[in-house]
């Protein structure tokens, strides 16, 4: 459909002795919403951090917007990151600043906009996530769901070219969840953003994703457009959609089998 | 909010600087050191005992300056003591005597100047001719014991 914004080739990454990625390839099209799914602990957050250049792969490369992320120097990497937004699983708001200053933070750091312009931009972003009344609150006074919406407003503040959402839906009530889903879709369309959406909420994710990637066991196991995935009825997809413990996706953390552990304990 | 932070930090730094100022001016000798207005005189001694650089130079018990350098003259086999004397005390005759004394029995050693009667005065870079070396306690005790010993012999004492 369109050009590729993020290209990942033969990505290998391990932590301590645990292999997390074992030759992952993926292409993420510019302007698309790509859903990345997989069981807890497969390395979805790790993948986002690799794309953002916070972690360095053992092998392989990540190319964002034509630049090899892990060959950039610090200044170039920071320049690139200004064009990446990231919404952390925990929100990652600065706890010593209030909501308003948190959203204004990247603007103040990276632009020379006048205070009044910053003010109206911040209030608009807050309005978009439905929290304009909360701009004076401190992060400790926010619920988990509110904090994530503030973090989303902050990630959008610099009008990035792409944004990575790490589980934006957890802890949202049905109304704000609906608002968020729509917001992700709207920003994606209105601003031409490329979005990577990591989520366990299959239904919501499938409703807005253009492409779907399922990770398991260090590899991409399913990849394709939403329609293809829905049609294919792959075992992985079924297991996710229906939340079955048994299936091709291993539910357990790799290690010795339980019966061996029990045997050892008995000795 | 931010203004009050700046104020309290200002108070903190102010108190800190005041404390540093007090340590410098009130709680040390900085205020009494004025190096700018002083002139130099030297004196030679056979033995300076425990005299050190920065030891006091006194006249009639009043501090007028301090020792700025101590050297050893390898030709004359003497110690050369250089002193900085405050400009306000310039009236020392040529035949002033410099002695090394100890303040108290075990105290610090200092240079004592005793003005003589010469018409001519000591100028900058001049040398004091008449000096008296430090009394070394061990020598004094040695002499004392020696004298005692010889006295006792005459008395036929049991010692």
């Amino acid at each position: 459909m369109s050009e590729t914004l993020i290209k990942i080739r033969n990505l290998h990454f391990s932590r301590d002795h645990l292999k997390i990625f074992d030759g992952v390839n993926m292409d993420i099209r510019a302007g698309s919403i790509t859903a990345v799914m997989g069981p807890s602990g497969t390395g979805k957050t790790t993948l986002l951090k690799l794309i953002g250049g916070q972690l360095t792969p053992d092998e392989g490369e990540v190319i964002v917007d034509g630049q090899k992320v892990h060959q950039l120097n610090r200044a170039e990497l920071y320049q690139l990151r200004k064009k990446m937004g990231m919404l952390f699983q925990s929100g990652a708001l600065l706890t010593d600043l209030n909501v308003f200053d948190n959203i204004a933070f990247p603007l103040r750091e990276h632009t020379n906009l006048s205070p009044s312009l910053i003010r109206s931009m911040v209030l608009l972003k807050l309005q978009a996530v439905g929290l304009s009344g909360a701009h004076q609150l401190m992060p400790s006074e926010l619920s988990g769901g509110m904090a994530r919406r503030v973090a989303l407003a902050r990630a959008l503040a610099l009008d990035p070219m792409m944004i990575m959402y790490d589980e934006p839906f957890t802890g949202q009530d049905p109304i704000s969840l609906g608002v968020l889903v729509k917001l992700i879709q709207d920003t994606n369309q209105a601003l031409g953003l490329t979005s990577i959406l990591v989520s366990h909420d299959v239904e919501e994710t499938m409703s807005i994703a253009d492409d779907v990637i399922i990770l398991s066991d260090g590899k991409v196991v399913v990849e394709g457009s939403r329609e293809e995935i829905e049609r294919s009825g792959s075992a992985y997809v079924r297991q996710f959609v229906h939340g079955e413990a048994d299936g091709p996706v291993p539910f357990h953390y790799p290690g010795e089998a339980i019966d061996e552990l029990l045997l050892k304990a008995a000795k | 909010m931010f203004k009050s932070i700046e104020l309290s930090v200002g108070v903190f730094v102010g108190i800190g600087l005041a404390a540093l100022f007090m340590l410098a001016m009130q709680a040390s000798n900085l205020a009494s050191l004025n190096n700018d207005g002083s002139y130099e005189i030297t004196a030679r001694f056979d033995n300076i005992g425990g005299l050190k650089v920065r030891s006091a130079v006194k006249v009639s018990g009043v501090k007028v300056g301090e020792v700025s350098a101590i050297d050893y003259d390898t030709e004359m086999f003497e110690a050369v003591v250089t002193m900085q004397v405050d400009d306000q005390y310039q009236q020392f005759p040529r035949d002033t005597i410099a002695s090394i004394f100890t303040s108290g029995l075990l105290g610090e050693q200092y240079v004592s100047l005793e003005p003589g009667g010469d018409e001519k005065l000591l100028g900058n870079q001049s040398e004091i001719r008449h000096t008296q070396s430090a009394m070394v306690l061990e020598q004094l005790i040695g002499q004392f014991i020696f004298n005692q010993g010889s006295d006792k012999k005459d008395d036929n004492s049991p010692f």
Partner: protein
Amino acid sequence: MKTLSRILTRLGRGTIFLARTLAAIPQLFVRFGLVTKQLHSVGVHTLIIIIVAGLFVGMVLALQLHYTLTTFGAEDTLGLLVDLALVRELGPVVAALLFAGRAGSALTAEIGLMKATEQLSGLEMMAVDPIERIIAPRFFAGFLALPLLAAIFSAVGILGGYMVGVDLLGVDAGAFWSQIQDKVDFYDDVLNGIIKSIVFGFIVSWIAVFEGYDCVPTSEGVARATTRTVVNSSLAVLGMDFVLTAIMFN
């Protein structure tokens, strides 16, 4: 052997970290507001405990020394001895120990929690270097604050010694100050004491920010790092004190 290599690895990480922090300090002069804010939490909040502790230490010194000095009839040197003890030794060391316990632990806990809650990662992803934005201002504020705190400790301690010695025990006020002004050397005693506190400020601040930055990002990891800050920086201060004293006053 394994422990040794772990310690050396940590030392290496700490040194690289320190180099990056120092490299970020020149930029702070452009945005001194960041440092001012940290001076507030590191300096102002430690001020009260420093003043109270300094006062009591000075008063106890005067009591103890007076007792011994009267047996030699040398009460006039009370001020001198209180001053020397504070300026050369107790001021820099006790202030540094209190600073490590009050401000150093708070720095470690704050930075460690920022790491645990992904705030540091979040900054990195916003293209803001946490070392420049978070670490360097805290380090620099600690480095600036401790010499001031140590000076305040000594000055207040001398006043405490004066109160007990002169007002309570009847030492002559003139003798108290004149002995000090005659025998306490600005360069040998006061300045060396200040140099000590500058070195301690550097070490404690370094340990505190590094332990926070390097901690295991969990509640337990932060708690451990905080303890390590207090223990390690106290030991480092006492050890460095010995080295510096040996160099300066031998």
